């Protein structure tokens, strides 16, 4: 029986475990340590992962889900999902409770189910490699993931048959991997630029204690956006030559996107990229049209400068929120594959006035930390566990809607967790028998400018004049960053509790059904590992 740490990424995932006190990274099926975060579905119910899954992005783009992390825990109507729909080759539809669901060839799948299939595959990779069953896992998430995104990630883990010991913030995991056992006293910044998200986190490391001082980020900014930028450059080159926009055709679009990612990686090491993509489109005389390209690094850099600039602006904002200057950071840790892009490194170095640490593998460091924390939690209370203590914070302010369209803040951003706060409210009308507590996250004073998370209703309030009733609203955020809301009618002394109905989330029953489904189809997930 083992536990693992999983860095569930937008583009790739990494799995690690601690064996005899050493971190071991689980190899991917086709070499290397990056497991593509792709699940491809076929009409007969088979699922394809790893390189097969990636190949099917071109062969069968409609049935191949990638970048699922950008969708998890978001409601169908959210602007992020709506924007994603226009760019993704696979179909999404609105399911129960405002969920976004993937329309597969055999049936529909909720996003946590898709991620659950991927996690199940990763678990099996680990089990095969380790020759042991895996029971529990720490799964990492971007520090700025909200409550719904964290819950959905836990659901995905449960569907994969994993006991999710913790959802851990990626930068905190990286800091743990960096600082554990070093007996240091340093203020560090973790600059985490992944496939789909950007996070910046400032930590104080004092021996075994890792205290997050502040965190911030952009959930919708990542290496994917650079790929899209390059895709557009390639598409324009093609259009200039042949007068046809290849983005309008699904297979061509998928191929260009994959080519764009390769060009990006190539330009991270070389000053130019040349190549030819055959059969991109068919010309007016039925001839096959190819795309020949030659892109210099500086062209690419000019195109992505704005994206990189956004990360620096976010970094600046987070540092100034705790009154620190860039020069007061002792060390900068780079995490995430996008930090391999030379312009990113250069801009980070320019901003902090010191070269960032690049000796830790930016792809693996998060999984390292996750596996260490998994081991700690599995052995809590025993001498086997390290003494590391992770003091994390809330990524966003949380509040509720009050009359007049305002949001009343209950928890601030960057507050140490666990945290519990109670506020006392009253009724707005005579004989009001119920209050509706709408929970939102964000800093704005106007409710509608924040992100709605869900709501709960406290009913059965006895008749009274407006303002006579006291309603206690308690917010509690645990070490997973998960919010629990209680509303209590204090006037009658009767405690009433209600769970927040999370918008866009799976119900418990739906999760249970998915767990059962996956259990019964667990075999045969790994055709390519049988050799």
């Amino acid at each position, binding site marked *: 029986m083992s536990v693992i740490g999983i860095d569930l990424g937008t583009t790739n995932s990494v799995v690690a475990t601690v064996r005899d006190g050493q971190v071991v990274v689980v190899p991917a099926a086709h070499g290397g340590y990056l497991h593509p975060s792709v699940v491809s579905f076929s009409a007969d119910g088979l699922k394809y992962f790893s390189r097969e899954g990636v190949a099917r992005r071109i062969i069968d783009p409609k049935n191949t889900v990638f970048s699922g992390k950008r969708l998890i825990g978001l409601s169908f109507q959210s602007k992020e999902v709506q924007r994603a729909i226009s760019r993704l080759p696979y179909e999404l539809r609105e399911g129960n409770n405002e969920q976004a669901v993937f329309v597969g060839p055999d049936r529909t799948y909720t996003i946590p189910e898709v991620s659950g299939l991927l996690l199940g595959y990763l678990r099996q990779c680990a089990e095969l490699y380790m020759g042991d069953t895996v029971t529990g896992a720490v799964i990492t998430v971007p520090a700025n993931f909200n409550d719904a995104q964290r819950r959905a990630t836990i659901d995905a883990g449960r569907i994969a048959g994993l006991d999710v010991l913790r959802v851990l913030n990626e930068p905190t995991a990286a800091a743990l991997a960096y600082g554990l056992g070093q007996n240091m006293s340093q203020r560090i910044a973790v600059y985490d630029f992944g496939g789909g998200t950007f996070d910046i986190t400032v930590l104080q490391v004092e021996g075994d204690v890792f205290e997050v001082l502040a965190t911030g980020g952009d959930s919708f900014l990542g290496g994917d956006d650079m790929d899209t930028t390059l895709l557009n450059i390639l598409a324009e080159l093609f259009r200039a030559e042949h007068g046809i926009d290849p983005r309008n055709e699904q297979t061509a679009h998928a191929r260009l996107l994959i080519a764009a990612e390769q060009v990006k990686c190539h330009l991270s090491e070389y000053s130019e990229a040349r190549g030819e993509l055959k059969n991109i489109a068919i010309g007016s005389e039925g001839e096959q049209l190819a795309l020949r390209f030659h892109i210099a690094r500086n062209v690419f850099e000019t195109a992505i400068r704005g994206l990189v600039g956004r990360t620096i602006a976010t970094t600046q904002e987070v540092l100034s929120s705790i009154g620190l200057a860039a020069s007061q950071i002792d060390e900068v840790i780079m995490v995430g594959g996008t930090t391999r892009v030379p312009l990113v490194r250069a801009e980070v170095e320019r901003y902090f006035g010191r070269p960032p640490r690049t000796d830790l593998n930016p792809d693996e460091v998060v999984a390292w930390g996750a596996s260490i924390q998994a081991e700690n939690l599995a052995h809590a209370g025993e001498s086997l566990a390290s003494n590391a203590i992770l003091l994390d914070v809330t990524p966003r302010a949380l509040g509720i809607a009050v*009359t007049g369209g305002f949001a009343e803040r209950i928890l601030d951003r960057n507050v140490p967790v666990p*945290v519990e706060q109670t506020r006392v409210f009253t009724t707005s009308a005579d004989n009001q028998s119920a209050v509706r507590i709408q929970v939102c996250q964000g800093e704005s004073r106007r409710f509608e400018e924040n992100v709605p998370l869900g709501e709960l209703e406290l009913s059965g309030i006895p008749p009274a004049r407006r303002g006579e009733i006291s309603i206690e609203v308690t917010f509690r955020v645990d070490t997973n960053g998960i919010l629990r809301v209680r509303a209590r009618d204090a006037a009658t002394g009767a405690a009433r509790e209600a769970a927040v109905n999370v918008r866009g989330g799976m119900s418990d029953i739906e999760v249970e059904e998915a767990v059962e489904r996956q259990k019964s189809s667990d075999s045969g997930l790994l055709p390519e590992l049988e050799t």
Partner: protein
Amino acid sequence: MPPQTPEQLAQFVEQMYGKLDQLSYYDLLGLHSGATVPEIRAAFYRMSKDLHPDRYHRMQDREMRDCLETIYARMCEGYRVLTTPEKRATYARLLGEGKKRLAGTGRESRAPQSPEDSIKHEEAKKFFRLGMMSLGTKDFKGAAMSFNFAKSFEPNSAIIKQKLAEAQAGLAKPGGPAVK
């Protein structure tokens, strides 16, 4: 000194949990009121090493775990207040007035929304209110009637539809009143 053994932990919870609201942040963290920021940080780190929820992650007793988390959450709150100069100054004033916590004591002047806020038509609002009162007393039949009236005045209101469905579900429940 933070507790170490399970027995000490149980004793600690018993001692602290009930009187949490009578303890100042200084009491909780074992500090004197003139403590410096490094002293406060050191005390909080020391407490965290034994009381952070990760340390009792595998504890079976949920209730005990919940109590411990509440106590520790209050320590986190104290740590934050005492290491933020403006908050510490405000807290010093509150302590003088006999209060032990910085927030969560006073009552807000604003009210959360009422389910009826989104209803525009006055008559619909009136019947909706009646329906909500019936729903509160589990009079599903009366509730369904009122919500239907409300719906006749404002057919497109999502909240009326939702509440009507709730009342109808209550009616249909086995053991509930028979549906006519």
